[in-house]
């Protein structure tokens, strides 16, 4: 496997401009001769499908949800970054680029990140024009806030529902193209495999989740925008349906999987309350702007928060990181919470929690101001926990939230399979080892609105006149495989439910490959997972048939893929003998307990190639060059 990132030559400010000029174009009248399959309808997928439809391509778009409006992008609360510098506080494209590379702990590709920052402003323009109701100041202009570790106010937001509003904007653009006949939408339809012919992505095999029908779709290009794989950990902030099946199947058909171990653990989630827990709920990081994080100074202090005097509280982030305080990046905040809980100073019934306290800011700004900023988040907290955060501090604990790793892509967002593109969280490209807050929405929309519409033409232009058909031996073979697997799943009729396997996988992943990782634990996980997989295929119990709506069958297929991906995540974590961003190897830390990178040996993207069932995956390295950002130990002190 040869990995060529296709980064344009020349100074970084001119790379995208140059790339756009050098790429081949498809004549407007010829675009309708190309069919593009877009899998996923979140920010990246919906914006891509809509924009490609507007350009004139024939688009087919697929989502497992009952409507494209429900993709998990909708849950993003806090905001979207853009280098508009509307606040006159010194922001610029270069600063957003610099912050993103640094925040990613120097494990992202400079050229991609620069382009992301460069197109960020146009995203805001586009969304406002669509009628996205962003927050505004009294003068009528757009409001901004500072977010998760940024020292400028560059985050645009729509109450605590920014993801929802941006997604509805993209969804409405998509529905408009559907009405115009340019996009055909397939809801409640799940991609179960990729078809590759002569080294090129030729289509997908899908299952209609309502009827169970297996169908083939052929196209000139396939775009995967299917989100992240955080549910490999079972409990995460991801929606229940979020899954890795599309990217994992593509991986097994030749797409390299890059940096799978880079997972983001979000510091501000509601703690687990019992075994029945089905998912974890994120509280927006924006809460850290006005909330102060603390634990009791003393171990085992079980007094209610209100009875612990000021002098006996440890505002540990403010103490350890005076410059950034409660606004340190996510990976650092999460690890610090784990440390105080490991010391026995955690709060709440399980001891796995820290306080996020608003009493000081309510005193300073008044309850009304806090209600205006966070009202819906406070309500959500109260609904779930039964506690009123205006009067008692919130309890929070880190949870798996986002995966920076994903399918390897080049500068055009093409994977290592020709004609297969990967957008948004599903790819690996922009966030390095740690994503900054409010950058996921930016990346999803950048990829969908402003990158793929340009880059896809370069590959398609040379293919004018190529006929695509799903009536080929390659399609038949893939379809047979899909059918066999579904039949197998419903015929095992073992003793354990799908959820019980998922829970067990999650326990292994969280214990051995969570906030802190070490070689012993990772080896233990790598030894244990094949056994769990084998048991799954002998003992899982999926009732019913594949002939209609069968939610257990859907889950079973996804969990089967997580059981394989989980092992790759652990292997990647084991091989990366350094700590960087969300990947913290306990063997590699400074005397103060901070992450210790090893730029000499690990300044590369780890891209794994599938080598076949039962074989160890093959590691390929894409070296990372830093010409513009000065490599340094991150310091937020």
């Amino acid at each position, binding site marked *: 496997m040869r990995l060529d990132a296709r980064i344009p030559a020349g100074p970084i400010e001119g790379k995208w401009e140059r790339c756009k000029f050098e790429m081949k174009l498809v004549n407007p009248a010829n675009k309708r001769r190309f069919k593009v399959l877009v899998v996923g309808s979140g920010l990246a997928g919906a914006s891509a499908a*809509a*924009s490609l439809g*507007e350009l004139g391509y024939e688009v087919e778009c697929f989502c497992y*949800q*009952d*409507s*494209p*409006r*429900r993709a998990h992008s*909708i*849950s993003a609360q806090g905001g979207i970054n853009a280098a*508009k510098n*509307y606040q006159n506080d010194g922001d610029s494209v270069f600063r957003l680029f610099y912050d993103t590379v640094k925040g990613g702990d120097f494990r992202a590709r400079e050229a991609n990140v620069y382009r992301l920052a460069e197109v960020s*402003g*146009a995203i*805001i*323009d*586009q969304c*406002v*024009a*669509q*009628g996205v*109701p962003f*927050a*505004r100041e009294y003068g*009528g*202009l757009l409001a901004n806030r500072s977010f998760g570790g940024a020292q400028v106010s560059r985050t645009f937001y*729509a*109450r605590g*529902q920014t*993801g*929802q*509003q941006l997604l509805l904007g993209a969804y*409405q*653009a998509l*529905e*408009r193209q559907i*009405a115009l006949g340019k996009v055909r*939408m397939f*809801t409640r339809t799940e991609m179960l495999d990729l078809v590759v012919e002569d080294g090129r992505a030729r289509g997908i095999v899908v299952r209609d989740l*309502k009827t169970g029908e297996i169908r083939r779709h052929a196209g000139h290009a396939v775009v995967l925008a299917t989100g992240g794989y955080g549910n490999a950990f079972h409990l995460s902030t991801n*929606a*229940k349906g979020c899954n890795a099946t599309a990217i994992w199947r593509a991986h097994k058909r030749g797409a390299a999987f890059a940096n799978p171990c880079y997972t983001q653990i979000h510091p501000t989630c509601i703690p687990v309350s*019992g075994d*029945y*827990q*089905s998912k974890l709920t994120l509280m927006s990081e924006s809460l850290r702007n006005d909330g102060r994080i603390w634990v009791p100074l003393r171990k085992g202090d079980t007094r209610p928060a209100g009875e612990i005097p000021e002098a006996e509280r440890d505002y540990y982030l403010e103490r350890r990181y005076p410059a950034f305080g409660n606004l340190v990046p996510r990976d650092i905040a999460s690890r610090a919470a784990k440390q105080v809980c490991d010391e026995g100073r955690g709060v709440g019934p399980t001891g796995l929690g820290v306080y996020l306290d608003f009493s000081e800011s309510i005193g300073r700004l008044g309850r009304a101001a806090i209600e205006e900023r966070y009202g819906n988040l406070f*309500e*959500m907290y109260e*609904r*779930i926990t039964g506690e009123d955060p205006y009067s008692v501090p919130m309890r929070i604990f880190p949870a798996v939230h986002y995966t920076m790793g994903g399918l390897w892509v080049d500068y055009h967002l093409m994977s290592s399979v020709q004609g297969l593109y990967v957008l948004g969280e599903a790819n690996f490209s922009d966030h390095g080892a740690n994503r900054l807050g409010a950058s996921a929405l930016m990346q999803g929309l950048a990829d969908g609105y*402003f990158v793929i*519409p340009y880059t896809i033409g370069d590959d398609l232009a040379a293919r004018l006149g190529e006929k695509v058909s799903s009536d080929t031996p390659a399609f038949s073979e893939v379809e047979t495989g899909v059918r066999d697997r579904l039949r197998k799943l419903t015929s095992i009729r073992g003793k354990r*439910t799908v*959820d019980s396997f998922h829970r067990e996988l999650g326990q292994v992943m969280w214990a051995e490959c969570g906030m802190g990782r070490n070689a012993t634990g990772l080896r233990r996980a790598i030894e244990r997972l094949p056994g769990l997989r084998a048991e799954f295929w002998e003992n899982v119990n999926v*009732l*019913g048939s594949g002939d*209609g*709506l069968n939610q*257990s069958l859907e889950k079973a297929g996804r969990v089967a893929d997580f059981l394989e991906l989980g092992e790759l995540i652990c292997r990647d974590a084991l091989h990366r003998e350094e700590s960087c961003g969300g990947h913290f190897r306990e063997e590699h830390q400074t005397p103060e307990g901070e992450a210790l990178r090893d730029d000499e040996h690990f300044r590369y993207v780890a891209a794994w190639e599938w080598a076949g069932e039962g074989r160890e995956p093959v590691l390929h390295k894409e070296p990372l060059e830093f010409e513009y950002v000065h490599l340094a130990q991150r310091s937020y002190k």
Partner: protein
Amino acid sequence: MRLTLRVWRQAGPSAPGRLVTYELPDVSEHMSFLEMLDVLNERLTEKGEEPIAFDHDCREGICGTCGFMISGIAHGKMPATTVCQLHMRHFRDGEELVLEPWRSKAFPVLRDLVVDRGAFDRIIQAGGYVAVNTGTAQDANAIPVAKADADVAMDAASCIGCGACVAQCPNGAAQLFTAAKVSQLALLPQGQPERWQRVERMVAQLEREAFGSCTNYGECEAVCPKGVSLDFIAMMNRDWLRNVFRVRRESRATGGAG
């Protein structure tokens, strides 16, 4: 606590359905309603009975996927709460609850508590957007929008498209859903150029679907998990009526439609 659930079971769109009774002897008050169903489904599977199908995804009250009737109330009795955010501490030991899918001809049942809400997407297709191709937008701050307008537009835009409004309405009307989108865009300068054709087309699509008519019962607002206000229906109706006269005036000015 101990609960008795009577749940609508229906194997497929055209299969007959019936209420089946399940006893849950040990529900924790900290569970969410859907986590209680997860536990029940695990037990059913272990006993060899097919689990209850229900729609859900984010479990944070924002994606709008979940929803069914709990003893006659869409999303259950807690105000402004989707069923995924409804916690068991609000129920009493020994209670009996009846779970049924959304009640609406426009939302056919697919299986158990799962319905098809495709009609909502078709209403948006009819005009619930601003027709602006990618790349054509001017600078985001070029047009100031009064904060009050932006805030009310956001109130309208907070609709999650769950369908509770339709399910609760004695007429099965979808006015609240449609009005939320019409009003959001009518309140913003970006929505003005298509304002009149939007309301006309979206209302026309609404009438083509199998929804009922709005007679201002207000039950939609009462069960809306996002508290979308009935005022938006009034705003939509006003715009719709104004458009009727606009069309009439224009056709007179151009000498009639022919």
